[in-house]
């Protein structure tokens, strides 16, 4: 088996807060092959954004290991991390605060080039190339971020990320702040970039429809743990885990002829400060039984490439 581009194993991250320790990420493992698109799906408190920032080395894990092409980035200094910066880059959720308002587009993208001493002899030409790649043009280089719309700003953010020629793009809710029509533009752009550049994608989102469209594999997160992971088609069509089923059932469908939401989970997402014992989903689960409160389910292989963390797997029947 070839070495994956990114492999994350037994990753945990806890944050001390004034009201106690938050276990944001709890023993999460997954890997992404070169050129593959992997989706991380979850609601608030699922730890999906924290995983993205851990993978970039922006924050350090409490436990576990992150490897790029087999090389661990654990405990590396900023200086030692620098070569890895060209492996993975990030696209952020908020197109407004992810660009420095005081810099021109040329300097925003140019900074990425300068930091890694790339294309220094043809800097302007390379910036124009990058802008063209994301559907903007060279004349945009001399403008400031506030002169652009949200969708255009997101394109600039993508161009900045692409400037260092990364092999993996980590996109943290990159379209959730955008209008539907702009959203479609950015999703299409990401698809095109993947196709033309062979980029791998770690796509972090709460929107299952977009993940289904963009990603080959997916992991469903709940309160910092992976509930289920496998090929997107299978997980979305015949989810194994009760939480995946609940999540899919709750997504409003833009089709009045589709069957309405039938069995909705009740209650709130528990506080990550005080997660339930055993299986974290058991407090809202239709299938929970005695052992679910005491035994922590582990991610177990169900079918080829498909894993599920549920004591009751396989569940009685699909609804």
């Amino acid at each position, binding site marked *: 088996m070839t070495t994956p581009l990114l492999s994350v194993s037994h990753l945990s991250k806890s944050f001390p807060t004034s009201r106690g320790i938050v276990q944001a990420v709890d023993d999460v493992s997954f890997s992404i092959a070169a050129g593959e698109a992997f989706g991380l799906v979850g*609601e*608030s408190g699922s730890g999906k954004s924290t995983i993205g920032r851990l993978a970039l080395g922006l924050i350090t894990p409490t436990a576990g290991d992150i490897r790029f092409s087999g090389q661990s980035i654990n405990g590396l200094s900023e200086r030692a991390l620098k070569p890895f910066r060209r492996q993975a880059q990030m696209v952020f959720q908020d197109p407004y605060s992810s660009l420095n308002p005081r810099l021109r587009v040329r300097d925003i993208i140019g900074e990425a080039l300068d930091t890694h001493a790339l294309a220094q002899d043809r800097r302007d030409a390379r910036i124009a190339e990058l802008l063209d790649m994301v559907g903007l043009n060279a004349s945009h280089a001399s403008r400031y971020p506030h002169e652009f*719309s949200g969708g255009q700003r997101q394109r600039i953010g993508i161009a900045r990320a692409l400037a260092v020629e990364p092999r993996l793009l980590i996109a943290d809710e990159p379209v959730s702040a955008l*209008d*539907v*029509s*702009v*959203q*479609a*533009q950015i*999703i*299409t752009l990401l*698809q095109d970039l993947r*196709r033309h550049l062979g980029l791998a994608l770690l796509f972090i989102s*709460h*929107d*299952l*429809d*977009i993940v*289904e*469209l963009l990603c080959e594999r997916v992991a469903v997160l709940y309160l910092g743990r992976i509930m289920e992971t496998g090929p997107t088609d299978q997980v979305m069509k015949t989810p194994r885990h009760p939480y995946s089923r*609940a*999540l899919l*059932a*709750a*997504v*409003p*469908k*833009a*089709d*009045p*002829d*589709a069957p*309405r*939401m039938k069995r*909705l*989970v*009740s*209650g*709130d*997402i528990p506080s990550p400060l005080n997660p339930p014992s055993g299986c974290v989903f058991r407090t*809202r689960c239709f299938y929970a039984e005695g052992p679910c409160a005491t035994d922590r389910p582990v991610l177990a292989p169900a079918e080829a490439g498909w894993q599920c963390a549920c004591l009751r797997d396989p569940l009685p029947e699909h609804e």
Partner: protein
Amino acid sequence: MAVASDQSAFKQDGPLLAVDTLSVSFRQEDGVSTPVRDVSLTLHQGETLALVGESGSGKSVTSLAIMGLLPRPAGFISSGKIRFQTRAKQTVDLAQLSFDDMRHLRGREMAMIFQEPMTSLNPVLTIGEQIAETVRLHLGLSGRALQAHVKAQLDLVEIPDAARRMDDYPHQMSGGMRQRVMIALAMACQPSLLIADEPTTALDVTIQAQILLLIDRLRRETGMAVLFITHNLGVVAEIADRVTVMYAGQVVETAQTRPLFRKAAHPYTNALLSCLPARAKADASGLRRLVPIQGQPGVFGEACAFAPRCPHVTAVCQTKPPQLELTDGGSVRCFRWRDLA
């Protein structure tokens, strides 16, 4: 050719709310802007109408104008009528109502919930106190009866363990619970009209589903009408009886929900629907892809505002702005809707 500036003839008993050619303007540092032009919509008792649009479409400004909550003194209604049928079966024009009359009506007959409940709740009062204040104001209750009513309000919005949660402060509650409290506050006066401005946008998917069901249940039980403002077409399909679509400050289409999602009359509505990830179509290489709307929203002018982005644009679209025309069961603002049907 029927021009649908007034659609109140749809039902015999007359609509609860009829917005008629409403325009809203804002005084700004560099002149006056008019983000809402010529908007007409109707809402009947017991009905849910979704007002859909992207940012800048004017949907929120329209709802604020209906509620009399336009930011003063910059925002004002520059023309049009907002006819509202009161409980006393009188029809009043909300656009002409005095500030005090409007406030009176807003407390008793119409209520509004917002996207972010935290900013609408007082952080230093318990939720029980806040609901009690509203109930006291509207129903004149006090003492035990008041407490019982407050608890009943919380039960109504399915807040578990209501007797205990009454003493919670807003910051002790989750976003979903706070939205339930906002709905309890809105329902305290048993409004005949509830305006919900993106009430589930900030919530998680599983919580959103619960709130949608709650609003729908309350509508069925009380017979109130709901004007549901959202950008999420999935939410529209779940909750709305009818849909009004706005684009660049104008209504471009109104229709029953089912036909609209099957085949909309206006090119913009269809384009918007094809931007939905679930509606992606496989291309030649088998990759499922979307059909984005190209370009940026056009500005209001001498032509159809959607013309620069419209795949069906013709010469006539560029010469004059189209009027709202009646279709069967709705209306559409497009010169070509008959050809495209």
